[in-house]
């Protein structure tokens, strides 16, 4: 059983070694935690996060997850989020849409889109962008696998992010996992939305299921919902198929009758 004095010395030595190696200490992720209750932790800047999803058709969900975190990093001093994509993947994955960003709660003026011709340029642009003091987060949407994006590249990016204090989100698709130096790796999938008031048939507030594959947080499974104040954990997965038919505040025949009346009036 080591004495407290010895523990302190060990910790100091570890820090010294980490400093020599210019390597963020192992407890990097925990050090970046701003708030942590029982729910989803509020993660500060300076992290490289990989957000994986199994299929490209979930592109909307992972963009929402990354932007939701990046939105929390925006301050008057760090006033922009940079979104990067290869120019030929725009049709496959879709481009961030200004009015949609407004609906999501992000000012479209705060998002700069960069479309590069090659992966080489894209990685250059990520590094260039994260080095800027005014950038809160960099979201790189990478639809294809590339040899350029290897461990060395992710190590560079994680060091850059740790040094400048902005966060990098790499949006990746598929089930392959390569070695990477990311601080956190999420596996994300969309979750059936919550109930919308007065209209149970309509899609409600959006939800995700996030599984932490790599990293050091107090939990690994999160069921997340999106509120005006950011992420909120939800208790349980809603039963599938619920919502058709019940919960309408008016008897079903009445809206139909009103609609009929309106039609006649028009």
């Amino acid at each position, binding site marked *: 059983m080591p004495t407290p004095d010895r523990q302190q010395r060990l910790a100091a030595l570890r820090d010294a070694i980490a400093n020599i190696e210019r390597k963020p200490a192992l407890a990097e992720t925990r050090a970046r935690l701003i708030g942590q209750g029982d729910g989803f932790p509020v993660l500060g800047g300076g992290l490289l996060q990989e957000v994986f999803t199994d299929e490209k*058709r*979930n*592109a*909307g*969900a992972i*963009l*929402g*997850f990354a*932007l939701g975190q990046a939105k929390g990093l925006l301050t008057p*001093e760090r*006033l*922009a989020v940079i979104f990067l994509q290869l*120019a030929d993947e725009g*049709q496959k*994955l*879709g*481009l*961030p*849409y*200004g*009015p*949609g*960003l*407004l*609906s*999501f709660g992000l000012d*479209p*003026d705060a*998002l*700069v*889109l*960069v*479309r*590069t*011709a090659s992966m080489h*340029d894209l990685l*250059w*642009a990520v590094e*260039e*962008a994260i080095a*800027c*003091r*005014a*950038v809160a987060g960099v979201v790189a949407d990478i639809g294809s696998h590339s040899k350029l994006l290897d461990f060395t590249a992710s190590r560079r990016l994680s060091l850059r992010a740790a040094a400048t204090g902005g966060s990098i989100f790499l949006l990746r698709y598929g089930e392959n996992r390569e070695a990477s130096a990311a601080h956190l790796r999420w596996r994300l*999938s*969309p*979750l*059936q*939305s919550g109930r*919308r008031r007065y209209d149970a*048939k*309509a*899609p*409600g507030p*959006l*939800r995700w299921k996030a599984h932490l594959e790599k990293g050091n947080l107090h939990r690994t499974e999160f069921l997340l919902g*999106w509120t005006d104040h950011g992420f909120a954990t939800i208790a349980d997965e809603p039963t*599938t*198929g619920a*919502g058709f038919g019940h919960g309408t505040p008016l008897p079903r025949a009445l809206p139909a009758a009103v609609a009929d009346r309106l039609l006649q009036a028009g």
Partner: protein
Amino acid sequence: MLSLPLWPTDYYKRADPSLGTPLVLYERIKGGLRLSAIDAAARLAGLKIGQNLADARAMVPELSVLEMDRGMLESGFAEFADWHSNASPLVAVMRDAEGFGDLVLDITGVSHLFGGESAMLETLLERLRVLGYSVAGAIAPSIGAAWGISHFAPGHVVARPELSEILDRLPIAALRLNPQQLAGLSQMGLTHVGSLRTRPRKPLQARFGVSLLDRLDQAYGDIEERMSPRLPVAERYAERKFADPIGLLDDVLMTTHDLAVQLAVRLEAEGLGGQAFHLFLYRVDHKVMALSVNSARLTRDPFHIAKLFSNRSERLSGEYDLGFGIDMIRLAVSSVSPLEGVQLGNFSHQGAAEDLDQLSDRMSSRLGAMAVLKTQLLASHIPERAARLGPALVARAAPRPANWHMPLRPLRLLPVPEHVAINAEVPEGLPASMIWRRDRYRIEKASGPERLGAEWWRTGQRLELVPVPPPKPVEPGQKAEPPAFVPDLVPFDPDATTRDYYIVEDGSGRRFWIYRQGFHRPDEPAVWFLHGLFA
């Protein structure tokens, strides 16, 4: 004025030194192959421009023959002209006779740098002769006179007092006249410019048109003739000449930084900043390479400018070709406006917005201006029109209407809506399932429709609210009514362009934005598209 009468053949010979002499170029004119350019040896052998190619071959059996490519000659001459901006900032190609061969330089206030006008002419001619061009030149107070003198009495430096004396002795061809005018004048026995000038003007105008008098006045400098310079004039620039040509890209970039420092000192003294910077690399073999970068904000920060050029140079690694080296580099600034004195360098205090603008400058300089984009919201209800992506360099946040309300929109929009196949149709409503990109989706939840009509006023179509009444039969004794005015436009067809949007969610929570094109018709299957992905 520099005149290169043998430019076409000289150009081909320089491009391919193995070409033999005599060299002629031919063109297909009126169905026959005729000579359009000949070199000095061919002229000595008695060949003439306009001669039949077969005749020429018979006269000179050892002739080298090439087809003439005017486009290539003209672009080659344009580069040649740009290169001459190392002698004078105002250089133009004279296009009166042909697209190549005549070069105008405005040397006002420049000649003292070369040690006087005649020394300047000698320098310019000599350096071209070394390269193997046949060139003649003259300096005169007017463009017309310089053209005539360089063609018919080359090598003269003419000042205004002796201008008319020299011009009077030149043949009338020195006036840049067209062949009909020349033929008419020689029929009248007028062979010299002097005899033309002393004639009464009215009869001349009546017979040869006003252009003859214009040419005459232009030559004597009585009316002004303008030249259109090829490169914009940059008032503020810094340049460096090299005793020996340099070739390495790193050297060029280092010099660029030095020049940027010089330029910054000058701009700071004047209290100015620039937004567009141009780097001209003058190659030894008479070509100019120009690189331009733009900055979102006024700047004179030499580190920033040098960084932009080094990013820009990475983009052209393939097309970077210095030939035999560079002997002069010039850095010019344009779009100049007043800029207050600010601290630059290590102790600078910059706001976040400046930082961000510099970042987009740097990224645009390497990736291209159209690669770094910002969203501009427009007041339109058509989804693809409501947001426009524009270069971040120029995009400024537009004021948004105060009561901006937009219904729920997807986080990602597909640039081109994709067709979805419906395999279980529900009449007049949303299908129960759909197939998109070869995957089947069962629609569990949906909201909609949100009907969006097309903007008929944009499509150049006519909105028909009231049908046009048929013309009434004309009653006897009364005038026929004029028909109602109907603009000559296609009637607007709401059926083809209206969309009904639905937000749909499948069993595992993916949410899509799909729409039906047109109205529902019982007899035709509806056409559905997927337009966006929700978070």
